[in-house]
């Protein structure tokens, strides 16, 4: 079966019983997607399927056949060009252990693609899908707010 991951066409065998999380981490070597609970409650394995934030531990690979998956590795336009949300997370110095950072970033990217100016309540609600044991929440709120402002500014400039 075929899937486009981070812009690259990839092939995988149908019928395996592993989840998308395992396909990404073990087959494709994309270890930026993390794991942590196997019960859909920690959010560490969040990836984008199309533009939607989705838990890779809960998805059968077959269901993404023919689709488009973006992991944290595919977010930047190149090593020197971080995505606005990644840059905002650096500017606000959000991460500590960094385990949930990719999931926080991708959750924010999905939110900002859906709602340009989400406001803090919606940011808090969406980021609640990702547990951060280091407690970086308020910095993550600031980063997403900053990224929304940057994206709005870019929109006006265009």
């Amino acid at each position, binding site marked *: 079966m075929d899937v486009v991951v981070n812009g690259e066409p990839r092939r995988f065998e149908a019928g395996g019983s592993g989840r998308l999380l395992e396909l990404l981490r073990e087959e494709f070597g994309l270890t930026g997607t*993390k794991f942590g*609970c196997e019960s859909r409650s920690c959010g560490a394995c969040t990836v984008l399927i199309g533009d939607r934030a989705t838990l890779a531990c809960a998805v059968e690979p077959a269901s993404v056949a023919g689709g488009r998956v973006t992991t*944290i590795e595919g977010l930047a336009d190149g090593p020197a060009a971080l995505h606005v949300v990644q840059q905002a997370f*650096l500017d606000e110095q959000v991460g500590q252990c960094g385990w949930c950072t990719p999931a926080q970033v991708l959750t924010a990217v999905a939110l900002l693609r859906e709602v340009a100016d989400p406001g803090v309540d919606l940011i808090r609600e969406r980021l609640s899908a990702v547990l951060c*044991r*280091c407690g970086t929440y308020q910095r993550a709120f600031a980063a997403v707010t900053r990224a929304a402002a940057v994206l709005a500014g870019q929109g006006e400039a265009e």
Partner: protein
Amino acid sequence: MKRQHRGAPLPDAVRRLLTNTARPGGTAPMKGRPPAPDTWCDIDSDGTVHLFVPKAELGQGSHTLLAQIFADELGADLDKVVVHQPDTDRGFPLGWMTVVGGTTAELMRAPALRAAAAVRDRISRGAVPQPVTIAEPRGLIGASAPRVDLPSKVTGAAVFASDIRLPDMLYGALLLPERHGASLESVSGLDEARRSPGVVHVIADTATGLIAAAAERSHQARAALALLRPRWRGGSEADQDAIEAAIDVRRTPTHLVQNVGNKAMPTDGRRLTAEYRTSMVMAAPAEPPVAVAEVTADRVTVHSSTQNPALVQDAVAKALGRRRRDVRVIVPYVGGSFGRKHGYVGDPAAAAALLAAATGRPVHLAWSRQQDQLNGPKRPPSHHLMEAAIGGGGELLALRHRFAVGDASGGWPTSSQAARATDIDFFSVFGAHLLYRGVPNLRVDYGRVPMPSTVHLGPMRSLSTHPNLFAIESFLDEVAAELGIDPLELRLRHLTNDEHGRRLRRVLEAVAAEADWGTSAPGTAKGIACCAYGRTVTAQIIQVSANDTGAGTLPIVVDEVVAAADGHLVNPAIARSQVEGAVVMGLSWALGERITVRQGQVVETDFDRYAILRADSSPRVRSVLVEGDFWGGGFNEASASPTAAALANAVHALTGNRIRTLPLFPPR
């Protein structure tokens, strides 16, 4: 009649560890000979400084702090420094490689400065031709430099032990007993498991209780284990009620921990008593415990998510019958630990090494979340009796804290071993001291409750400071109410005018000023608490309001936490982030985290039942960094500690309800 303590007093070494908030200067003595200065760095021809550090980055920012310290003394630009992960082959004493107690910067500053100075001198004498331009110290210490680990953490390039990928690597899985202390009697279904797709090896060892499989992919290893039918014998049958009944200071022999004034509780005047209890909680780091092992004829290499490479090395050497020096342990980025990955029990490295030795291929092995919740260490439950004597003029004559704690020292084979000879788990005594030395009589007694066959207890972030301060600092507010004086005023009035008292006064006054103590917006209330942990002092004020919207499950909303801290300041931005994060964990433990046991089995096996604070309930946290006169300790443990009491005091101020049990709002 004066009560007699039945056990021995605390050993001096333990007492010093617990009461050193006013000991100025320098660092605690480090075990092990300092290595040659160039153990710390290699310098490339283009001027890049490769900094080799003894301690793992668990998220606390330590690699940035060490880079700042080293670069400052070397006279190098921080952006020329590349930090390399700790590796037992690099030549640091193993004792330096343990990460505990938020002490990395405090303990490693002097050795790093000395090494950097030696390297700088050799370069400037021309003894070593190096391309580094030596400058005066750059003022890097004290600067809010950006963290060196975050660029790779936002792109997914950061490598954790979980992310190690080696050629031909297999993925393992473990089958652990669901009851603490169960032993393995027999296993059937082995043939089926070994024939299962992708499976390369299955271990089922009744002597050690190890059941593990290695396969081409991790779901195949798990599927193979699901075919096994293990028979476990024995194991805990404890129920929550029995555990709580066992933790009872009235029925526990106690040790004298603190005795000031040396008088019995006065019997005239008023007397105030209250009882407090705390529940078991977990560290629950985001990345479960994991190891990748590679075994060859003469060498074993383990990539481990650990705070303690020495213990991992030891466990792997023992499991394989190798010499310690043939086992190399590398610690990539650790996805949080908070005490969980202390390396002694509940670490997968030895099992990974056994699978690797049996298959001749590298093996990746992680615990599942459910396994960690069931089998991983819990902070012990505690029971506290607080007592105050008040004189006829309304003066506070005596304070007493008697408490009993489940023994967590079984999970820790280091300094507590000496202490254990006197029946002390000294982790339990952290934060137990009464800080208000202006009160004429102070007395603290501690009782250890051994629970070896009940549940796996272990030390974690802030040790017992969080539960101890919940009792002490909540009770201080009860005393203030009884005396009719302001809780902050009561605290300030009973601090002594020595360095200890002055440090606490500074953080209390700083937090009060920042949080506008004494004022409350309508519908809100504030609570205060303070803390001494190691060489760090902190004070916090929490503002709460009623949960009018009905959103979430809590009856209150935590609006804001203001935290003042005086600790070892190398990078203010990192210190602030550590304060913020520790406050969130301290709040999470206080609000709803609780481990319960039914018939020997932990009930809260996932994050739906184990209620860790999420973004939508997370408050604003503002920090005030108080400049101390000497090197304090880390910010990340002390700042989790007073939070429960400050919250309970705020809840009381808002609702009139004095909650004396942690968590304050257990999930139903």
